[in-house]
């Protein structure tokens, strides 16, 4: 039964990372497109990209911490 918990934790961590990777990829793809189309707005685009990126990172890290807790506890 304990092995199943380890499997679940590892599986959950993988899923969280897949989601975060897709999200970060989408954010930066759009940012690169927008910068290429309008290079003079590069600074504004960069500061707009930062905030959702960090929120996404925070959600992912919470998911990973929950996965670690499933193993430790």
């Amino acid at each position: 039964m304990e092995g199943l918990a380890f499997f679940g934790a590892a599986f959950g961590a993988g899923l969280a990372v897949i989601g975060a990777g897709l999200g970060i990829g989408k954010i930066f793809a759009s940012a690169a497109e927008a910068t290429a189309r309008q290079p003079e707005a590069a600074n504004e685009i960069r500061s707009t990209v930062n905030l959702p990126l960090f929120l996404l990172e925070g959600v992912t890290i919470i998911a990973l911490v929950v996965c670690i807790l499933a193993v430790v506890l």
Partner: protein
Amino acid sequence: MAGNSGGSFGDIILHHVTNDPSHIYFPIHILGMDLSITKHVILLWVVAAVTIFMATWGTRRYRKNPSATPKGLSHLYEILMNFIRDDIVKNNIGKKDGKFWVPLITTYFIFILTANILGLIPLFEFIPGGSNTVTGNFAVTVALASITFFAIIVAGTMKHGFFQYWKNMVPPNIPFPVLFILIPIEIMGMFIRPVALTLRLGANMTAGHIGMVAIFGLPIILNMFGVGVVSVMLNIGIYFLEIIVSLVQAYVFTLLSAVFIGMAIHPEH
């Protein structure tokens, strides 16, 4: 991690990335709270001393003459202050309201950056009592995030008054039944923000160290000492990645604190 087949190695990893509670320098117990002096408490004092000394040394020219030309260490502080004031505070809080919050935001940045960089100096590992990354300890990051939690409330109350601030939590002119969904979500969001700040900083700083110790443990686990060459080379790369992570996490904590304070000052209409 402890308790399974690789239990002893998991314990070694945990010992290197957390504050070791068994090694207490000076026990203090007040009102049932454990306020003992451990390694992280001593390192926090070191961080405070370094921060205060460097700040007073770097800005001493401006106390005599506010428009002095920067020289030596004051260059660093001039760049840092300009960056925080113009790029973080002015963009997210606003020019007029932001002036009050620049000192707090700057203190966050310098403190977290100093603590993160201190955790990367291998020399401090020789002091007994666990890891040397103060910001990898969740108690420290909880303290930092609770300062943000109260700063958000104080910022909103100062700008709008006590009752108006709590009314601003929900947008005006929405149908009455929606309030039953919206108010619990807003109250949850109020507490989730500092929790996310806490976990982000603490987990990021701990994760890098776990990775480094695990890679250093590879030759022991595999029982092949040739792997040690590979693990040292890998860890040099990870070490430089950790320097970037230290800078980025200090920036992220500062930026998000500024954004949250700005959200309290400028509510949605």
